[in-house]
């Protein structure tokens, strides 16, 4: 149970306070409601590049990192297809420094040409390091456009290609900031050894005078229902064949999201899971296999990826996966097995409450979904799922015409 207080400033900034007196630290987390899905298809990778530029100095503060480090703080950020999230952890006695820094860059950036030039290079190196210079590193650059034809989830957060990053201009950066970075499009969570009244005063002091800006109205093209199986075979300089199957699944707020998530747990969470036990241990067809969901806000993907043992044909490996999926469709899952994945979910939720930063990020994310209180209802939503739900959802998910299969053949 994560307790919190909540208020909204006149300019629309939503603020959540989680008091946790067990730590001498504080967290200030700001989620901006913008991700790679909000990008122009001709300028992909921009939300993430922009995240880098947020550290290049703001209108009144030339260096973001230095004053924070000076008061014993640390920070980082991440961009996903859905959101951009920034966080600071620092000794709670110095919390005002975090307000000062975050409010100034919400007010305005410095928009330095040098920073843009350097960060373009840094991000291009990140692109190479994580996506191009690794075996199977480009899987998301291939799997996303195979599964999505219309929705902007068809490109990865890093962008479609290096060229899009190379061509980013300072005017694009300014326009992006104006559109997405303002109080109305942000959720701030302050947690740790803080008081709600103190946070109210500081929030008003530092954020209250920032102009509300325009509210961004998201109107994304939704992905039409897939009607036939898709398949792509690539031959690549990888040591082993690789197999990826993506299934469309419901978005984050859908009831069936939870069922789908539990299905991925039944398939691959822990050494007792079905795919691991059957395909890695018993039949010895794969050296590794995983199933997971992309946890996307809009309709996402459940992905199964595995590396067949050398000598096993791709067709044989694929058929063996489908055999397991058919079992979920045809046979009701036993109560014990369902209890097992529910217990795992319950303990994961409890362990995540050990981390102040996790709690702060989660509160911001659930507030974005509609209500921070939803965080405290998560476990109960998993616990409510029945074997019948599982079967019905498995039948809905695991159809050939809902699948996109990507195969790497080792050269």
């Amino acid at each position, binding site marked *: 149970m994560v307790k919190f207080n909540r208020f909204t400033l006149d300019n629309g900034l939503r603020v959540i306070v989680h008091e946790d007196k067990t730590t001498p630290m504080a967290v200030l987390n700001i989620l901006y409601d913008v991700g790679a899905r909000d990008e122009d298809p001709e300028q992909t990778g921009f939300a993430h590049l922009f995240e880098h530029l947020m550290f290049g100095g703001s209108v009144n503060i030339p260096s973001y990192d230095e004053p924070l*480090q000076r008061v014993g703080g640390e920070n980082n950020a991440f961009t996903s297809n859905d959101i951009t999230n920034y966080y600071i952890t620092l000794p709670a006695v110095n919390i005002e420094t975090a307000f000062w820094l975050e409010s100034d860059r919400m007010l305005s950036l410095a928009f330095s040409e040098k920073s843009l030039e350097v960060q373009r290079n840094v991000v291009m190196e990140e692109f190479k390091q994580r996506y191009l210079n690794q*075996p199977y590193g480009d899987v998301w650059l291939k799997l996303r456009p195979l599964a999505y034809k219309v929705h902007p989830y068809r490109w990865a957060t890093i962008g479609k290609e290096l060229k899009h990053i190379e061509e980013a201009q300072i005017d694009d950066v300014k326009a992006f900031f104006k559109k997405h970075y303002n109080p109305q499009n942000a959720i701030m969570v302050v947690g740790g050894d803080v008081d709600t009244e103190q946070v109210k005063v500081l929030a008003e002091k530092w954020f209250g005078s920032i102009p509300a800006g325009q509210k961004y109205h998201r109107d994304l093209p939704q992905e039409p229902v897939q009607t036939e199986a898709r398949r792509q075979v690539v031959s690549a300089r990888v040591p082993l064949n690789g197999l990826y199957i993506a299934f469309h699944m419901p978005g984050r707020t859908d009831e069936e999201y939870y069922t789908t998530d539990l299905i991925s747990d039944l398939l691959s969470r822990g*050494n007792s899971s079905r795919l691991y036990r059957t395909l890695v241990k018993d039949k010895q067809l794969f*050296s590794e296999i995983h199933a997971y969901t992309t946890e996307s806000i809009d309709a996402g993907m459940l992905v199964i990826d595995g590396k067949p043992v050398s000598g096993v044909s791709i067709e044989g490996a694929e058929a063996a996966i489908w055999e397991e999926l058919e079992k979920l469709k045809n046979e009701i899952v036993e109560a014990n097995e369902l209890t097992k994945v529910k217990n795992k979910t319950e303990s994961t939720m409890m362990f995540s409450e050990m981390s102040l930063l996790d709690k702060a990020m989660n509160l911001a994310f659930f507030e974005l979904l509609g209500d921070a209180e939803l965080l405290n209802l998560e476990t109960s939503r998993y616990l409510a799922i029945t074997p019948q739900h599982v079967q019905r959802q498995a039948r809905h998910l695991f159809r050939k015409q809902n699948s996109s299969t990507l195969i790497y053949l080792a050269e």
Partner: protein
Amino acid sequence: MLNRTITPQSKAIEHIKLIAPGFIQLENNCNFYWLNSGEQELVRIEWIFNNLRFNPEKPLLNIAVNTMLNDGTSKMSAAQIADAIDYYGAFLQVDYGFDHSQVTLYCLNKHLKHALPVVRDILTDSVFPEKELNTFIRNQQQKLRVSLQKNDFMARRVFNKSLFDGTMYGIAPELDDYAQLQRADMLAYFKQMYQPDNCTLIAAGKIDDDILKEITSCFGKSWENNSVPDISQPGFKETEQLFNYIEKPDALQSAIRLGTKLINRAHPDFPALQVVNTILGGYFGSRLMANIREDKGYTYGIGSGMASMRTTGSIFIATEVGADVTRNAMNEIEKEINIIKTELISEEELSLVKNYMLGSLLGSLENVFSHADKFKNVHFSGLELDYYDRYTEAIRTVTAKDVLRLADQYLNFDQFQKVIVGKY
């Protein structure tokens, strides 16, 4: 009117308080430490064993034995072990390390009585079934084949081998080494290593008398020793070759790793040397990051780190840079090392690093698990928790001249091992 150009007032970090563990030596000589704190009804328990003497002829024995601990006992199959652990929402992890290898259990208190006997069974009666061993060998070989294509993996492997050849620290297994694994060797290794005499048991979480009792009754008297483990270690094979270049003609980036053997945590210079390391490459604002990422844009990240092992330590710098700028990056790294050895650091930069390091220590104490981790750091270096008092004192009092002296004494670029995988 709010003046946004002025930094808010800040305070220095005062005393940092660590949770001291409770301790009992169990009747079988197992040393049991526990740290009780936190609101959640859960616990993390670690069984930590000293590695046996490393045998270069059979380099994978320790890793294979540790990794296969949950693959079957005479009473339970791998599948039954997995069922038992997963059913109670627990997490059972096995990890091997340079000096120690361990089993970790994460569990809600309400399920602990079901999970502990499984761990007990694993630690006393693992049998490494032949079929599971074959699966292990095949899967590990496949994983290794993937890893060998990653430049950063290759750089780390060659670097460690160059510094620490002939020991666990320098292990660089080949595909064939997996095929050599024999079940009989593993059983003998297991029997000697995983016994209470050789075990440090550390529990952290919400631990009341009932939980303590559950742990001690399961791992106390009835868990018996069978022999005296040989935990001595061989020395390093020294090498003359300081530069290793592995060419990858199609590489988009080169992985660079360089560094040297160094003092470990038990040495009085260690905390102050950590200040030197932090200035050089130990945080986001470090000189290497500021120069090679934030000024030149050669890389997504570059950092330096210090490792402290039982008999030695090391300092290393690691990065992956655009293949076309590998030489430039190496030059800049050398330049930064020379600067820290020859130019007095400004008070402004030094005070920033000190504050950053103290804040970072405070921030690293997030929950009771982190307190247990801090305890392990000192305990396995033969130190007490008061090390952290000396550490904070050393950081507060280190001077610009000390930084210069320590950098000059310990960092000699010409003597560094250097590994490049990619293009040069």
